[in-house]
């Protein structure tokens, strides 16, 4: 079922105090943020705490000849200087990545990217620690770096990972999906085949808060407490237990307020491990906090896919097949954060929202002398790349056929009666109704009128473009039979306890980084139990306080933990019903649930509220036979499938004919994320993602020179958009609930980041059609747009 936006204008109302779950409501966490009372890792102060700073490699590829730490050790207020050799003695010089590769904690044999960790200093304060770094004398023997991903597999290429026995090249893995033979047959008979080389450049999550940790090891009882910037505290705890050999029950990970993650805080970084080692070595709490340059140059990047896209269609405009080959740059260590059976994440959804006859993708992943990562970065595990590919190719096809971009999509959408739909690469889309979403975006945009305006402007020599994209996302990883991270199934726990007075606490395994979990999850429980959201406390981010689960990334919190929160509430409600039947002295069959109360069918005057029941559950009065006291429940939710939100985005750009500067004049985003819990929070997520999309499309890129120097090591060099670069967002929605999710919600965190770059690029290419431009790669800076206008578009790498 799909409902479109109601006619009435939805107004903001504070339903904080109402026993109603869904709807607009101010965020419960915001008062502490707006009053400066948030508590981030860098706010943690412990008695006797020391500070750690990391020495990083200035070179991309070099052998380490010697490391002399004597001068640094001699500096007053320095407590320890630790090198890779010293870690190797403890067996800690290398650690596993999330993709079954290994990564060095501190380099021993050689450095493999600029910014790699070489040594660390522990001192009384962060200034001394930083000063001491300059006194460490490292002699390097420079090696040729592998910087051009296209040459990484050349026979003559230097071998980045020569420490792996028998490794003589930079190959990591080959991966394929779909049916090569069937796809070839469809391409062979197709009237029209279009192909394009498409680069999705390397970008960085660049969260406002950089990564850091405070490690506090208590040698007496063998307990480690680690405050850490992590999106997945439970998964990290298990990994530390496996890597460091500490018993898991003696490790407590606290992820306090987190200033943005975007996937960048999923991996375990060497700095976290160094902090733990430093606390073990010094016997004191140790804080490590990255600076901005360290964050940009060493923590997980995203994208970096060089793609060849091909699309086949009939001359009437029926899309038949899509095929692609991808060259994936994984940097010096394969640190992709994705379920292990999915080395390319969920790139397999590159078939998009269309009814195809065949599809095929082959991929080669390689090592280069760049920072490792390949994190989610607001991409639902590589769906950003997949959607960009298919949406560029569909617009490219429209261009070739001479048909309208929006119409071509409307003509090829999956139909509502095809859901659940199994794609040619094996993904089962749970539900979808694409046409109303697309029509709604076109209606808000005034699509026909925009096309007329464009025609008139072209006649006057002005450059205006309209870009369309339509995405289907796959979020909420995932079913444990298919999805795990290093053997940990991607299920999430939830505990709910209703106190005697009817207030409640819900404990989650997912971890907010700004998404508003403390509000959304309170609303989910409120909707199920009829307790006002204000009366529900949400606890998360502390492994001692919450049940096990895999954390927040890939838009999985609402699809997985949201389901857990709803189901655990229903478990509590079921018990409450038993108690209510005793209180009202009627059989269960005669009870009706009215939000917040059970009432006798046909006699609504006779009722008990959930608060009455909570008091009875904890009180001295009788409970029905066999019912224990208390009103609480626990659950571990294993999703049966992913959820598949979708959306239609339309972008309008103007380009200055003289300077080639692109202005995003309008952006229309119509999202369908199923049941909407808090529309204000959804809009906030969408606004942020769209802004992110403008950044990637127009300005963001982590570039390197041929020597391997990172050219994006500060926010003066790595540009992030400001309010001046983005228009007033025009958003709308449709609602197609997920059939398998208990409340029909689908997840929305990454939708806008996934959907917006192709809309913007499609708009720029549409604008440049009179110049004969068919494709130009991101970032579409004025210079790169001008080159395209001059008939000479250049790939960014």
């Amino acid at each position, binding site marked *: 079922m799909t409902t479109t936006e109601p006619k009435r204008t939805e107004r903001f109302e504070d339903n904080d105090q109402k026993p109603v779950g869904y709807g607009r409501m101010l965020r419960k966490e915001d008062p502490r943020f707006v009053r400066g009372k948030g508590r981030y890792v860098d706010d943690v102060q412990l008695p006797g705490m020391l500070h750690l700073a990391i020495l990083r490699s200035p070179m991309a590829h070099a052998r380490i000849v010697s490391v002399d730490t004597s001068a640094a050790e001699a500096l007053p207020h320095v407590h320890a200087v630790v090198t890779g050799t010293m870690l190797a003695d403890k067996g800690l010089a290398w650690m596993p990545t999330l993709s079954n590769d290994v990564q060095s904690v501190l380099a021993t044999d050689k450095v493999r990217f600029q910014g790699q960790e070489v040594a660390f200093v522990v001192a009384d304060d962060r200034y001394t620690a930083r000063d001491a770094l300059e006194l460490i004398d490292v002699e390097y023997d420079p090696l040729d770096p592998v910087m051009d991903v296209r040459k990484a597999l050349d026979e003559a290429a230097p071998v980045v990972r020569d420490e792996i026995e028998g490794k003589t090249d930079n190959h990591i893995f080959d991966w394929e999906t779909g049916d090569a033979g069937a796809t070839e047959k469809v391409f062979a008979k197709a009237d029209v085949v279009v192909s394009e080389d498409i680069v999705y450049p390397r970008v960085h999550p660049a969260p406002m808060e950089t990564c850091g940790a405070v490690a506090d090891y208590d040698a007496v009882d063998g307990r480690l407490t680690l405050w850490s910037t992590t999106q997945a505290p439970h998964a990290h705890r298990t990994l530390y237990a496996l890597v460091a050999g500490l018993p898991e029950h003696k490790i407590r990970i606290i992820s306090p307020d987190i200033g943005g993650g975007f996937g960048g805080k999923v991996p375990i970084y060497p700095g976290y491990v160094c902090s733990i080692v430093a606390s073990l070595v010094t016997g004191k709490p140790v804080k490590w906090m990255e600076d*901005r340059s360290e964050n940009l140059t060493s923590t997980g990047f995203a994208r970096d896919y060089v793609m060849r896209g091909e699309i086949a269609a009939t001359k009437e405009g029926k899309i038949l097949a899509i095929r692609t080959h991808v060259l994936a740059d994984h940097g010096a260590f394969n640190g992709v954060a994705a379920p292990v059976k999915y080395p390319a994440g969920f790139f397999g959804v590159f078939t998009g929202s269309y009814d195809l006859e065949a599809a095929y993708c082959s991929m080669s992943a390689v090592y280069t002398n760049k920072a490792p990562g390949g994190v989610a970065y607001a991409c639902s595990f590589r769906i950003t790349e997949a959607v960009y590919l298919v949406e560029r190719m569909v617009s490219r096809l429209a261009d070739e056929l001479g048909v309208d971009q929006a119409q071509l999509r409307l003509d090829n959408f999956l139909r509502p009666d095809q859901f659940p739909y199994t794609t040619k690469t094996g993904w089962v889309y749970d539900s979808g109704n694409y046409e109303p979403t697309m029509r709604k975006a076109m209606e808000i945009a005034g699509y026909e009128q925009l096309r007329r305006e464009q025609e008139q402007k072209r006649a006057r020599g002005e450059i205006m473009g309209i870009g369309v994209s339509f995405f289907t996302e796959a979020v909420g990883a995932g079913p444990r039979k298919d999805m795990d991270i290093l053997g940990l199934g991607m299920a999430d726990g939830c505990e709910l306890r209703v106190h005697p007075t009817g207030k409640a606490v819900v404990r989650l395994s997912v971890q907010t980084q700004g998404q508003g979990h403390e509000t959304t999850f309170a609303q989910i429980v409120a909707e199920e139990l009829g307790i006002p959201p204000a009366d529900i406390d949400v606890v998360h981010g502390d492994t001692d306080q919450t049940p096990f689960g895999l954390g927040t990334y890939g838009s999985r919190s609402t699809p997985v933990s949201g389901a857990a929160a709803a189901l655990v509430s229903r478990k509590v409600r079921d018990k409450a019903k038993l108690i209510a039947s005793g209180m009202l002295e009627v059989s269960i069959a005669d009870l009706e649930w009215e939000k917040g109360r059970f009432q006798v069918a046909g006699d609504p005057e006779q009722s008990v509220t959930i608060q009455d029941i909570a008091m009875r559950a904890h009180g001295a009065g009788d409970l029905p036979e066999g019912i224990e006291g208390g009103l609480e429940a626990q659950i571990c939710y294993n999703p049966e499938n992913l959820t598949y939100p979708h959306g239609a985005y339309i972008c309008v750009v103007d380009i200055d004919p003289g300077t080639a*500067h692109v202005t995003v004049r309008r952006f229309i985003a119509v999202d369908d994320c199923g049941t909407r819990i808090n529309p204000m929070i959804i809009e906030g997520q969408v606004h942020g993602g769209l802004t992110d999309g403008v950044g990637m499309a127009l300005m963001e890129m982590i570039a390197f020179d041929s020597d391997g120097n990172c050219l994006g090591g500060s926010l*003066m060099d790595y540009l992030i958009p*400001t309010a001046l670069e983005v228009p007033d967002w025009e958003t709308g929605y449709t609602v197609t609930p997920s059939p398998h999710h208990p409340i029909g919600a689908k997840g929305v965190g990454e939708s806008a980041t996934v959907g917006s770059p192709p809309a913007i690029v499609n708009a720029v290419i549409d604008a440049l059609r009179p110049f004969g431009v068919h494709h130009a790669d991101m970032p579409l800076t004025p*210079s790169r747009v001008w080159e395209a206008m001059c008939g000479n578009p250049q790939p960014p790498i």
Partner: protein
Amino acid sequence: MQVPAALEYERASDVDHALNLLGRYGDTAKILAGGHSLLPMMKLRLATPEYLIDINDLHDELGYIRIDPTEARIGAMTRHRELLESDELGRMFPIFADAERVIADPVVRNRGTIGGSLCQADPSEDLSAVCTTLAASCVIRGPGGDRVVAMDEFHQGPYETAVGDDELLIELRIPVHPNGSSAYEKVERRAGDWAVVSAGAAVWLEDGVLSDARVGLAAVGPNTNGITAVSEACRGQAPSEELFARAGELAAQHCEPSTDQRGSADYKRHLAKELTVRTLRQAVRRIVERN
């Protein structure tokens, strides 16, 4: 958090005090004005001064805009925001307001100063291009008194100026000629980024012909540079689209852009031409509209 190296800090109470401190500490000291270039460089440890002499208390003494019939004088501690908000300066030299509107953001403009901007000597800095365009001269005070240096000689390469270790830039002087106007335009990848290229133009009309015209470009050479060939080509000519186009070509020929993350050398050369045409056109239009 990026942490600078250890340093000593002293706050100067007046110009003499500042000069005194400079005399004592010489090249181990740096002057702190707005700090929006110096402090980031210190945090990145690209600058590691042993002494920091804060001259923000000199704003009373050096924060002024005085315009008389032959000359405008601007104190070195005049802040961007004051330049932007000065109606008098805006009427006389609209190039200032044009430039200030595209310099960074209000937070930076509240602190940054014209003296600090010029002394940073960044090749892409906007007020340097403005002062180059307007043929400003720089008053430098040292132990031996004041000396005046023309803009062309003030910058001596990227991040290098004519100001000695024991000297302080205290004032900018801009000649005022009748019936002139000016304009500024910048292309940047994002608000607050350094210019890809920017151009300033100043023109003076007499009996329908240009008595003088000046164009200053930023980010296309080691320093902001005035394009004398444009002045020569324009003097004595009636303003026209053809003349602007020729001036644009000359500007493109007489600059030295290099390829970097902000853009290719070819694109920057193209912008030198395009922005020269636009600013000349706008400056002339302003005179025509005023009359």
